[in-house]
């Protein structure tokens, strides 16, 4: 029944339940309210947490301590509830709001989509799953410190030699980093050489020596050795990833709607300062 999956319905039900609990609370203080049950499942849970921190399993003595601690906490919480200590406590208010916030998120869970529906969604959001374009390149460097105002003509002359088949390794100035880079995305080239250089070499044609390209370091002649185009990921290999992204989107969408609806049930009065 769809209505029981509707988060708003949950709020209404929870609200009703709270009213009811409050109503019966004083009468229920009798036998029931004076029983603290430490269930086997609870003990098991607490022991697991304890072992996780201590790095060993609890002994009998530790176990007794764990149970005592639990009972003590439970008794204190019930007494505090009786005295209304939670009223007006910012921390508790925040925590309650946070828990409710989780509930809203948790409730907003949709059924898994059909394969066809998921694939449609994937096609609408292809860009999210695309691998960026990568380029492999070789560069020949010219240092402005060395060549000064002659740098352009020096680089142009070198380009002529390269075009007629000269070995690039023997041309240009020594470069402190590498002279060949394999499969780097534009963002990475920008971090290594500056954004202008990166943008320029991602427009070059492959396998020919470029005109001089400027970088943070000086001028470069660049040859693009290989281009791995921005890969449009295929649906099947990354199906799980697509499903996770779809669920994320569904969740946050449902959560936003649920919160909007929840707040819509209140009349909000904002008083203006005189």
């Amino acid at each position: 029944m769809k209505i029981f999956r509707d988060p708003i319905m949950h709020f209404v039900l929870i609200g009703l339940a709270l009213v009811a609990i409050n109503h019966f609370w004083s009468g229920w203080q009798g036998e029931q309210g004076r029983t603290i049950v430490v269930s086997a499942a609870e003990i098991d849970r607490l022991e697991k947490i304890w072992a996780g921190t201590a790095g060993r399993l609890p002994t009998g003595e530790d176990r007794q301590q764990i149970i005592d601690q639990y009972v003590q906490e439970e008794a204190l919480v019930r007494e505090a509830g009786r005295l209304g200590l939670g009223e007006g406590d910012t921390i508790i208010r925040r925590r309650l709001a946070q828990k409710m916030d989780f509930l809203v998120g948790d409730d907003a869970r949709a059924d898994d989509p059909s394969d066809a529906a998921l694939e449609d969604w994937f096609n609408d959001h292809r860009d999210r799953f695309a691998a960026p374009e990568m380029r492999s390149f070789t560069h020949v460097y010219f240092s402005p410190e060395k060549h000064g105002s002659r740098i352009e003509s020096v680089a142009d002359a070198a380009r002529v030699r390269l075009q007629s088949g000269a070995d690039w390794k023997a041309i240009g100035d020594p470069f402190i980093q590498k002279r060949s880079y394999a499969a780097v995305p534009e963002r990475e080239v920008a971090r290594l050489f500056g954004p202008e250089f990166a943008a320029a070499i991602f427009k070059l044609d492959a396998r020919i020596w470029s005109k001089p390209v400027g970088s943070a370091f000086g001028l470069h002649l660049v040859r693009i050795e290989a281009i791995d185009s921005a890969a449009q990921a295929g649906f099947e290999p990354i199906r799980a990833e697509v499903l996770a992204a779809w669920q994320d989107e569904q969740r946050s969408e449902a959560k936003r709607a649920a919160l909007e609806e929840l707040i819509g049930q209140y009349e909000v009065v904002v008083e203006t300062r005189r």
Partner: protein
Amino acid sequence: MTHKLSVLIAMAMLISGCSAEKGPDGDRHVALAPGETAGEEANPDRNVYFGDLHIHTKNSFDAYIFNVRTTPDDAYKFGMGETVKHPLGYDLTLEGPPLDFMAVTDHAAYLGHLEAMNTPSSPLSKLAMAKDMFSTDSDKITAAFQLIGGAVRDGSKMPGVYDPAIVGNVWKQIVDAAEKYNQPGKFTTFAGYEYTAVRITRGKDGGFAGGNLHRNVIFRGSAPDMPFATVDSTNPEDLWSWMDDQREAGHDAMSIPHNSNVSDGEMFKMETYNGQPLTKAYAEQRVRNEPLVEITQVKGTSETHPSLSPNDEWADFEIYDKLLSSPVPSKTATGDYVRQALANGLKLVEKIGADPFHFGFIGSSDTHVVGGSFDEKNFWSKVGLLDGTAETRGSIPPGGKKSWEGVTLAPSAADWFSRWSASGYAAVWAEENSREAIFDAMRRKETYATTGTRIKLRFFGGFGFDETMLDDPQMVRKAYQDGVPMGGDLVGSKAPGFIIWAMRDAMSAPLQRVQVIKVWTDGGEAKEKVFDVACSDGGSLDGTFRCPDNGAKVDLSDCSISTDKGAPELKTFWRDPEHKAGQRASYYVRVLENPVCRWSTWDALRAGVPPNPALPRTIQERAWSSPIWYVPTA
């Protein structure tokens, strides 16, 4: 700690006790962005790798208390370029390319204990101390935190509090996390921890103050079951002996001291921990275990101090000299700064036949929020809740004021946080990006330190070098063949020559100048001199030792810098004009960038207020190479 701040901490800590459950940390394989070093053939000419070897997570007592809940996994993800959360809820992302190598170095003493105290199912949470620590009463929190801080410092095992099982358990998680993220050829992670010794130099003040003797212990590969911490001994010499034993047992390691600048004269003292004269055996054990020193990080610079280097116009860089958590300044006269220690080391060679201060340099961050804050433009400092906003750092006036008139900053901001730095990196020249290659490079000291910029720096010394090598495509190969790189000993009788090559970081400012700092002794007296050796913008030395001012400016209205000043690279061959036959000396390189806005100026600019008048408006980011020692033979 101010009262208001403590209450804030208390509140935040209470809330954090119930922070959002994270989704399952899927073991999604994190693909590394392919950088210049990803999965490559070993390079005999060596590549430079940038890393951070000083990182704290929630496992450190002084991170957890300030609401840090991020883990070693988060630290590695940050280094690989992913986004992590600051305790105040904002995003932290690395500005530059992914890091090449990292080590998480949580305080080994009382490792993981604060989290245990805040876990209701742990016996530690029942302690009165734990209840105080996570209460809302700022005095109680401070007192409880000081108890732990004091025990870390004194190495006392508080009965009923200190639990070696927790330490062993968390240590195993740390070692496992390093193992999980290590990808030879792409991304190197080392198991490591911080040994947090402090020398009580001024009587007990109940705080964490005293002579800082902290070291980070980094393992080359495998690690033992338990770290050696201050609870085992507060004497660093015992740590070295333990490391010697571990090396025998197959767990090679080194320890890297940091913040000698606040050691109250203790880090490079001219006597042993127990006040005995230094011996050859002491020196040999020290250099075997401590080939490197961290000289720049968030808590300032340990190169030198204006009072020690009056003829060095750049000695006042990011000086931070207040003892840890204390308003008391450190004794700077001796034992705090590396330049002086290098000179003292040369003296000791003459006296005891060995140099205990024969070390190279690295930088690192010492972040306590898993992500190092390297970038002036976007600084988040170090200790989470305490210094995570411009106001708490003292870079903007408190309470939304628009001017500094009549403003008195909280002591924590004035004494500490406003003086801290957006720094630093460890740079290493190694054949490949692997644990073995990087650790071995660190052992031979082929390393340099930067203040958060990624300047590339080569430095070689030799007897047969000359000017013509500079344009030789085979220069690097020849330099290795016929000389020694940074960190090496140049042994011989001739005059040494040096090749220095620096290239800017494309994302930072251009280079202004390259300098050589020479340290030597003359008749038992320590001497030093700063030589500019290469100038940008055609500046000529003309037989002096200073470049002319290149005129680079910073526009403080928007923090833009001169676009037409500075050099992309500076390369030079340099001979010591004051070389004296038979005189020992050490030489290290300092590279200075053009000035840029300091982080505090960026903070102020964003808030639309003037920068704090007590702070430098601009800084010159820099790199320091490990020294080359000239060892004359008769």
